[in-house]
């Protein structure tokens, strides 16, 4: 079995699976159960300043989106940071870390945007034995209205300033958690980097309304007939998170900046994908909230089996896909494939036909006895049929070798050629 031991900004853990700062890490009892189940580390539920604790709503705080079979695809929440007294949290953190010294214990923090507040909280957490801090600049609801969370995370100057304070007043590794509620993730990430962050983690939740109650005409979760936007997470946000992680990973100015990948990690595969796109570890919230802590066992066995099969170490996987994450203009426009339907696997549902005939390129033929075949002279290889087919790998994309005839264009497949050199590209011609 591959060794999954991980070191992230010098914080070691037996595996790269951490629980994200959220309800699963809200208190001692949860975190102990999580460690017993095998989680490598936790980012403790965000702590605020000393003072009267935060209050939460007392009605539903979650909304949800489901797939077939009521599988939870997306969750949204209007929960705030911890609503328990600061000292209680600090005492619990100290106790748990003492009993589980090999697990990563990172404390998430969110206090008002002034130097005194940050200095104060950093002093208070000093002797908990925690391995690091994560600055929650991500939360999109409730705290943002009070000038914290994503209100800071959306202003790069604030990120840089607060990060610098934290680095000044604490020796602990500092992870800056970013909000996806921005047009580009790069300015906030660069600001964290300039401020001296040891790492960034992303994404926090995405501003959202999951659904509307059509009897009460209120967004859901509905509190006494009214709803507020919440933060979206779970499998549905993974594509957004992957892109943002990859954007940072490939940015030349941030090369080497460790990234903790968060957002929709549900299986070992999701984790491996984040790591391949540059994440040093991953954090999980919704999957644990959906299935319980035991899922980490599948993540551990799956990732180590994958690494064994690839004869690769965790370090070698990290960032492996980053060089292949390019701009559209760098894609090989001459690369040509054709859909191919494996008749043995086909269950004759006809979904590929409907998709292609109605909405794409009329490239699938249907015989009277429901045999579906691809018309190579029409197929543009868009992949839609592959994606709507209920049987995995029944429809595959077969590559046409360079030099072979493409029946659609009537021309042989040409060697590599991108938009940058394409004859239709005015700037390509201008450059010549």
């Amino acid at each position, binding site marked *: 079995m591959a060794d999954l031991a991980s070191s992230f900004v010098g914080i070691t853990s037996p595996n790269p699976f951490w629980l994200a700062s959220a309800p699963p890490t809200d208190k001692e009892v949860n975190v102990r159960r999580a460690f017993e189940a095998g989680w490598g580390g936790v980012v403790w539920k965000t702590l605020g300043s000393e003072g009267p604790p935060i209050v939460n709503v007392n009605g539903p705080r979650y909304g949800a989106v489901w797939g077939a079979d009521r599988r939870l695809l997306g969750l949204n929440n209007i929960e705030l940071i911890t609503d328990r007294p600061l000292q209680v949290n600090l005492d619990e953190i100290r106790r748990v870390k003492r009993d589980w010294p090999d697990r990563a214990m990172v404390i998430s923090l969110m206090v008002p945007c002034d130097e005194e507040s940050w200095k104060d909280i950093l002093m208070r957490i000093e002797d908990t034995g925690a391995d690091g801090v994560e600055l929650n600049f991500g939360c999109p609801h409730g705290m943002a209205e009070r000038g914290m969370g994503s209100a800071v995370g959306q202003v790069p100057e604030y990120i840089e300033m607060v990060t610098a304070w934290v680095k000044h007043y604490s020796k602990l590794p500092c992870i800056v958690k970013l909000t996806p509620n921005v047009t580009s993730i790069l300015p906030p990430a660069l600001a964290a980097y300039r401020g001296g962050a040891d790492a960034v983690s992303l994404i926090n939740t995405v501003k959202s309304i999951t659904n509307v109650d059509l009897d009460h005409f209120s967004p859901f979760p509905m509190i006494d007939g009214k709803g507020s936007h919440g933060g979206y997470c779970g499998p549905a946000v993974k594509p957004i998170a992957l892109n943002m992680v990859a954007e940072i990973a490939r940015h030349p100015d941030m090369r080497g900046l460790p990234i903790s990948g968060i957002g929709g990690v549900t299986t070992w595969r999701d984790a491996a994908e984040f790591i391949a796109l540059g994440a040093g570890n991953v954090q999980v919230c919704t999957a644990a909230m959906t299935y319980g802590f035991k899922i980490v066992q*599948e993540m551990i066995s799956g990732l180590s089996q994958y690494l064994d099969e690839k004869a690769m170490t965790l370090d070698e996987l990290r960032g492996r896909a980053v060089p292949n994450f390019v701009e559209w203009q760098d894609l090989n426009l001459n690369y040509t494939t054709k859909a191919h339907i494996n008749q043995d696997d086909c269950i004759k549902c006809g979904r590929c036909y409907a998709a292609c005939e109605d909405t794409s390129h009329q490239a699938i033929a249907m015989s009277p006895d429901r045999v579906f075949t691809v018309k190579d002279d029409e197929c543009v290889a868009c992949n839609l049929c592959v994606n709507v087919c209920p049987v995995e790998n029944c429809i595959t994309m077969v590559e046409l070798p360079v030099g072979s005839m493409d029946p659609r264009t009537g021309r042989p497949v040409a060697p590599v050629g991108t938009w940058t050199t394409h004859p239709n590209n005015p700037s390509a011609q201008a450059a010549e």
Partner: protein
Amino acid sequence: MSNTPHTAGIVAGRLPADAYARNFGDAEPPLDRHEAQVAADRCYFCHDAPCITACPTDIDIPLFIRQIATGTPEAAARTIFGQNILGGMCARVCPTETLCEQACVREAAEGKPVEIGRLQRFATDMLMTQGVHPFTRAAPTGRRVAVVGAGPAGLACAHRLAMLGHDVAIYDARPKAGGLNEYGIAQYKSVGDFAQAEVEWLLQIGGISISNSMALGRDVTLAGLQADYDAVFLGMGLAGVNALRVPGEDRGNVRDAVDFIADLRQTPDKSALPIGRDVVVIGGGMTAVDAAVQSRLLGAQNVTIVYRRGQDRMSASDYEQHHAQTAGVRIVTNAAPVAVHGNGAVTEVEFAYTAEGPGGLSLTDDRFRLRADQVFKAIGQTLSGAPEGLALTGGKILVTGPGRTSLSGIWAGGDCAAGGDDLTVTAVAEGRDAAMDIHASLTRRG
């Protein structure tokens, strides 16, 4: 082809040649990748899942199904084998309808449980056909343990002990290892030579020797084993059978169902197996169902199971009964044999209807006869050849906790030990747990 299902007497080759391969092929074909994916996606990953509790070996079922769903059936197999080294056989033979699948919350919700048994087979076949043995031995302890019986209980015990670093010597009375996996399980549940392949795969752990055709009480003695080994595990199953105790029982063509099944399992060419035209099977358990169904599959025209109590009391599950009826077996209940008639060989069996009263089961005067040229007795197996000095209870070896017998240094498990259902999976659990207790006792002393 000269014989047909209605040829009188006990003859071979009642069916067209190609029918045998079909009849004795997989009763439940293995899932392919797509089917396994769809089946796995149905699992809810329940907390403290009821299916785990229902499995005698406590396999972490939601975890292994999730591992299949995420494309790592090999990891799923490791999860299974970690609890149940005969997970491959159990996937084929467990009456899942009364175990894990009965407990599945989707059985309660929709009457359609997740297909746990078939998913288990998908995962275990995957790893076993790759020839991968997922465990390695701990450093040798120098301790030696004798195991009597190479059935599921003995094999599970031996494997666990070997894994923990002990050396294990298995003695089995039969020429081949596997116990009832090799000689008893219905052919269509365990097709091909799976039982032997599984034994070979299991032995890859190393540190286990098997001496076949070596019977306790005949070739070795308990005292001898105690002298030569640090501990002894008895997993000798139930080698004896109950008798009908009715006049005419000794007539020709009246056999024990387990012998018939053993012959059937050991005959590769099923068309060479003689079978009666009118077969009567007496009993109400899995053995009765297997004997009856396989008689039909060999081409017997009329096969009747006769059970002395009501259908709900049959120990064969509803699923098994349904399977028998689908195979064309007639099930007659509330009737007990009173005489076997014939002239030399059996020609008829006479039954009396029974009545259930406060004093137990009684025979009524209402009688009937069934035509029979072959009769299979399947009214229960018994412990035979238990060594002297062991306390018994209800005809089986008395055990406490993880298989401790009344004699120190001697453990027992599987069918020969009291308690637990007589199932392959139960035998595996008991063998495994006894091994852990033996290990604890050996390392404590050492």
